[in-house]
C-alpha cells in the first residue's frame, strides 16, 4: 500500500487523548511503503527500529533522515529497507567501522543507497526549520567545503543584512519521527532526562510522532516538573512503553551503553551473512521488545541499570 502523507498545516494539534499502544500497532499504523522517516539518536529508538524490521515485507522501502547515527540506522540499511539516507554521520563510533553502511554505499549490498549529506548542525537546522514552519535556516557551517558542492539543496548566498556568505538548508518535515525518551504520560507529554540531542526538534518537524519510553507516568508526575517536558502532547501520535528500549545503546539515568554487546554486534555486521544471522536471531526471531529483552537477558539489562545508577540517578548527585 502506498502511504499518503498528510499535508502539514499550522494548527494541526494532536488531541489530548490516550495514545499508549504497542510498537507493533504504532509501526503498522504510521509507517508504510516510502515513508520519509526521521530518527533520533538520543536516545536510540531500538525497540521501534526492531519492529520496523519485523514489518519489512509490508514496508518495503523507506527514506531516512538522521543527524548522526551510531549503529541503529545500519540495522535498517542492512535489511535493504533504506532507499535514501539524509545524514551528517553514519558510523560505529566506539564500535568502529560501519561495514553495513560501507557495503551499501560502495557496493550496493543489499541495495544501492542514495546519500544526501550535511554537517551535523546543518541537518539539525533542517529539522529546526521544519519545526518552526519556515522554509529554510541560515547557518555558518559548510561554507568553503565540498558538502554544498555535492549537495545542491544547500545554497550558499550572501546574507541580505551583512552581505556575508551564509549557507541555507531547506526545511525537513518527515512523515514520521521515531525516538526513545525517558518518560511520558498516557496522552503523550514526553519528558527527556539528561541529554536529548535533537529529539525535541525532530518531533516538532514531523507529521506523525512515535515515542517509546522507559516509563509511563501519571499526568500529575508530568505536572510536578512541566519544564522537563521536551515534547508536549500536541505533537505526539503514539506512546510505546519499552523499558530498556534503547539497548544496546544508553538511556541516561536508566542504564548505560552495553559496549561488550555493541562491539560484538559490529563484529557480526562485518559480513552481510553475519548481519543476517544476527537479525534472524535477535530481531526477526523475537516476537516483540520484551521477547528481545528476554533473549538478551533481564539479568544483564538490570545490571546495566544498577551500574548506571551507581554513578547517576535523576534528582540526586552521586
Amino acid at each position, binding site marked *: 500500500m502506498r502511504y499518503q502523507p498528510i499535508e502539514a498545516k499550522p494548527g494541526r494539534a494532536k488531541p489530548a487523548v490516550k495514545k499508549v499502544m504497542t510498537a507493533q500497532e504504532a509501526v503498522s499504523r504510521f509507517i508504510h511503503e516510502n515513508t520519509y522517516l526521521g530518527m533520533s539518536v538520543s536516545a536510540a529508538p531500538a525497540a521501534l527500529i526492531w519492529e520496523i524490521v519485523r514489518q519489512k515485507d509490508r514496508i518495503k522501502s523507506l527514506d531516512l533522515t538522521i543527524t548522526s547515527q551510531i549503529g541503529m540506522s545500519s540495522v535498517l540499511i542492512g535489511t535493504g529497507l533504506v532507499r535514501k539516507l539524509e545524514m551528517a554521520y553514519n558510523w560505529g563510533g566506539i564500535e568502529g567501522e560501519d561495514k553495513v553502511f560501507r557495503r551499501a554505499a*560502495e557496493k550496493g549490498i543489499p541495495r544501492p543507497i542514495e546519500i544526501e549529506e550535511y554537517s551535523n548542525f546543518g541537518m539539525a537546522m533542517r529539522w529546526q526549520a521544519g519545526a518552526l514552519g519556515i522554509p529554510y535556516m541560515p547557518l555558518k557551517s559548510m561554507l568553503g567545503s565540498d558538502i554544498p558542492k555535492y549537495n545542491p539543496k544547500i545554497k550558499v548566498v550572501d546574507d541580505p543584512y551583512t552581505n556575508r556568505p551564509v549557507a541555507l538548508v531547506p526545511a525537513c518535515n518527515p512523515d514520521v519521527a521515531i525516538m526513545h525518551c525517558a518518560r511520558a504520560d498516557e496522552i503523550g507529554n514526553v519528558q527527556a532526562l539528561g541529554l*536529548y*540531542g535533537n529529539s525535541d526538534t525532530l518531533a516538532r518537524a514531523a507529521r506523525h510522532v512515535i515515542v517509546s519510553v522507559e516509563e509511563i507516568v501519571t499526568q500529575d508526575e508530568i505536572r510536578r516538573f512541566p519544564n522537563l517536558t521536551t515534547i508536549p502532547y500536541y505533537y505526539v501520535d503514539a506512546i510505546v512503553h519499552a523499558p530498556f528500549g534503547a539497548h544496546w545503546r544508553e538511556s*541516561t539515568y536508566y542504564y548505560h551503553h552495553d559496549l561488550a554487546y555493541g562491539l560484538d554486534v559490529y563484529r557480526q555486521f562485518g559480513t552481510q551473512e553475519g548481519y543476517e544471522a544476527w537479525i534472524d536471531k535477535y530481531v526477526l526471531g523475537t516476537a516483540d521488545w520484551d521477547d528481545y529483552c528476554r533473549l538478551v537477558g533481564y539479568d544483564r539489562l538490570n545490571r546495566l541499570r544498577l551500574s548506571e545508577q551507581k554513578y547517576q540517578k535523576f534528582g540526586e548527585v552521586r
Partner: protein
Amino acid sequence: MSKYAENYSLPELMAATVAREIRDGELAFIGVGMPLMAATVAKFTTAPNFNMMVEYGAAGPSPRRLPMCVNCAVNCERAYYTGSQREVMGAQQAGFVDVACISGAQIDRFGNLNSSVIGEYKNPKVRLAGSGGANDLASSANRTIIMMRQDGRNFVEKLDYLTSPGYLDGPGARERAGLHGGGPVAVVTTMGVYRFDAETCEMYLEKIHPGVELEKVKAAVKWDLAVSPNLEVTEPPTEEQVMIMRTLDPLAVYLGTGRATLTGDFEAFMKMFENSYQPMVDLMKSKGL
C-alpha cells in the same frame, strides 16, 4: 611537575601533547576517544577551570567512568547542563567554544580534512563516516586541534573530498568563504606535531616524536614539507599524565587494544565500569575537583 614517564604508548603521547594545548578557563568541544583523554588530563593537571561541551547536549560533565560516545549517558554525569544539541552546537556557532578537537582520514597542507569518502564521491572506493559535527567545529570554533594517524598516504596534495575546512586554499580564504572561526592551530599525529605559518597558512613540522626519523616524516607527506628551523622532540607525557589516562581507561579502550578485549565479554566490561568509581573519586579529591 611530575617527572617524565619512562613507559608510555604512542596514543598516550598524542593525548598528553593535546592536553598541553588546552588552557585553563577555556570551554572546549570534545568528542570521545583520544581528545577525551587529553581533556581529562588537562582538567586534572594544568587546566582545572576548563570545561568541556559534548555534541549531543551536555556541558561541564565530570564523569568517573569512560564516556563511550558523544551521546553517551556518561556525558551527563555531574554535568552543569544537559539538554539539546541545539544548545551546544548553537553556542559553538555563536563563538562560545575556545577550542575543539577534530580528526580526518586525509589532510592537506592547509589543514583541510576529509572524513567522507576515499575515491570519487559518487562511486567511492571507501565510504567513511561523514562530517558529523567536524565541519561545524572547523567552521566556527575559535581554534581547532587536529589529531590523526599518519599512515604514509593520507597527508595528500589534494583531498578526495573537503569535509572540514582548515585554511582552504591559503591566506584570506576563510574570511572570503564567510567562516568566522579561527581555523586549525596544531596537527598532532602519530609522527609529530605540526603548526601553521602565520603568513602562508601552510603546515610545517614543529616537533617530532621521540624515535621518529625526519626522513620518514617527510616521506609520509605528499607535498614538500616545511620544517621548523628549531625542530624539537615532542615532550613525553609525565608519569602523572599517564596515571590519569590509565585510571580513566584502565583497559586502554581508547589508547590501545581494549576494544578487542571487551568484544562480547560482558563481565570484563562491567568490571571495568563498576570498578571505575573509587579510583576516579580519589583522583578527583586529590586534585580538589
